[in-house]
């Protein structure tokens, strides 16, 4: 951007700032917990928001306050979402395009074959179960979104517990040497279970528990607050996996009007997508409803959202996962759930 134009943008921002009640704003800021990462917390080599054309210091502050911490966040933001922060959709689109240029280095389109080449060095979180890893062709891929769908007792929470432990293992044992963030909407998380699984994996149970950041969400607003907070925690605490167990119940009970529910879900999905784009694996669970057979809850909302959808069920003493929406549709993995966690049959 030419210097004159940049100065003009900053002047416009200043005029806008003067129109706000400064005392009220200062009071609000002091009341809030600092969410914004300080300069030294911006990872080395990462492009700062201020480096983008059209983004001055004040705009950058506004963007961070609204949860856009990196150029990557902006590159994948939706124009209307950003327009709410910036006051103009045209300006939002210009900033998104500038961010996309930096993130993609101008590669707007690539072929699937080029992507295939790019993906050869990807990392995975092993599930600890050979048949499940085979089903997923290596485990939960870094930066992917995986959904576990099933009835009560199908083993969704058990796999979540196991993954929260597995992600902590060193890379040579199938983990990422990273922490897990566990958001529990149903109160089914059990530290005792984590201790059992950790022991079976020869990990120090105390340390394993320390490496799981847990949050209980009692309402949809709780879920959003935790996810907002998680954006910062993910950077500070080396989070490799975010688990949301379960994703639909609170939304279905709190929002009886479809329109409101859809808007709340849109917000949830954009949060999850954001984590995925930051190379954090996301795993969430979904209940089923009974209507002309078993249907995953909130089916339209989530249809095609996750990279991988696994349908979990139990037959006698054996549990099974079927890949519903994946390149390997119709394949099934079989396993057992024991004291040591989820294990091969």
């Amino acid at each position, binding site marked *: 951007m030419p210097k004159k134009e940049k100065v003009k943008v900053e002047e416009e921002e200043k005029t806008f700032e003067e129109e706000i009640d400064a005392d009220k704003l200062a009071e609000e800021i002091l009341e809030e917990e600092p969410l914004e990462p300080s300069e030294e917390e911006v990872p080395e080599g990462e492009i700062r928001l201020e480096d983008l054309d059209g983004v001055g210091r004040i705009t950058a502050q506004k963007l961070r306050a609204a949860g856009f911490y990196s150029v990557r966040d902006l590159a994948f933001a939706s124009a209307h979402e950003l327009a709410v922060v910036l006051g103009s959709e045209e300006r939002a689109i210009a900033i998104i395009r500038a961010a996309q240029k930096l993130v993609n280095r101008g590669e707007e389109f690539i072929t699937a074959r080029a992507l*295939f080449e790019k993906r050869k060095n990807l990392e995975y979180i092993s599930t600890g179960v050979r048949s499940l890893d085979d089903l997923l062709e290596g485990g939960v891929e870094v930066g992917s979104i995986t959904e576990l769908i099933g009835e009560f007792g199908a083993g969704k929470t058990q796999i979540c517990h196991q993954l929260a432990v597995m992600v902590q293992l060193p890379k040579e044992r199938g983990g990422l040497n990273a922490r897990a963030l566990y958001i529990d909407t149903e109160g089914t998380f059990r530290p005792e279970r984590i201790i059992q699984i950790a022991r079976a994996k020869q990990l120090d149970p105390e340390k394993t528990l320390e490496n799981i950041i847990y949050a209980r969400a009692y309402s949809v607003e709780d879920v959003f607050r935790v996810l907002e907070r998680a954006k910062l925690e993910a950077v500070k605490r080396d989070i490799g996996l975010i688990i949301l167990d379960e994703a639909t119940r609170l939304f279905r009970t709190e929002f009886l009007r479809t329109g409101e529910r*859809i808007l709340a879900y849109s917000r949830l999905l954009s949060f999850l997508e954001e984590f995925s784009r930051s190379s954090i694996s996301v795993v969430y669970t979904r209940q089923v409803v009974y209507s*002309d057979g078993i*249907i995953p809850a909130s089916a339209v*909302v989530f249809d095609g959202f996750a990279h991988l959808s696994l349908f979990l069920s139990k037959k006698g003493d054996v549990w099974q996962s079927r890949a519903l929406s994946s390149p390997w*549709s119709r394949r099934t993995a079989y396993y057992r759930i024991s004291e040591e966690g989820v294990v091969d049959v």
Partner: protein
Amino acid sequence: MSDLVDLLRGGFALEVSGRTGTGRRVYVFSLLSKLVKEGSNTVYMDYASTFWRASKLSRKESFLDKVVFTMPTAVDDAFQLLAGKHDFVVLDSIPRFFMRFGKTYREKWGIVASLLALGLRFAREGGGFIAINYASRGRSFGENIFASYFTHRVTLEEDSEGVRAKLIYPFEEELTYVRF
């Protein structure tokens, strides 16, 4: 039993609907592999991570080299893709596009309807527009509003014998269904 490709002559706006796991994307890929010829220009609006899934396929799908995947982040950019520069445009999917854009619930419906209207115009000018949709209990998502924007509608249904493809508009017809 007919092959859908034989029914899609000239321009078309096709809806492929079905439940999660019925193989809608596999079906569309199969269709594209027959439709996309050397030198044709195909763009795939990928809001459902199909790009990711396609790249995971160990099998070599050479036609994918002729398809460009994109995910416009602004509604106008998505609309632009139907401006007539391409031979085929795929929207994957209607629910994902619906969830992504629009500040209000009503606006979301309007944005999808606008895109589908452009798809229909694109078809009138000789282009091929394919939209993937969700369907359950014999109805596709937003059927009351969106159905009128398609020249052809196919639904995939699962029964005890497997998945069947069925043309439901402009007339009812069982279709050949090949998985790969």
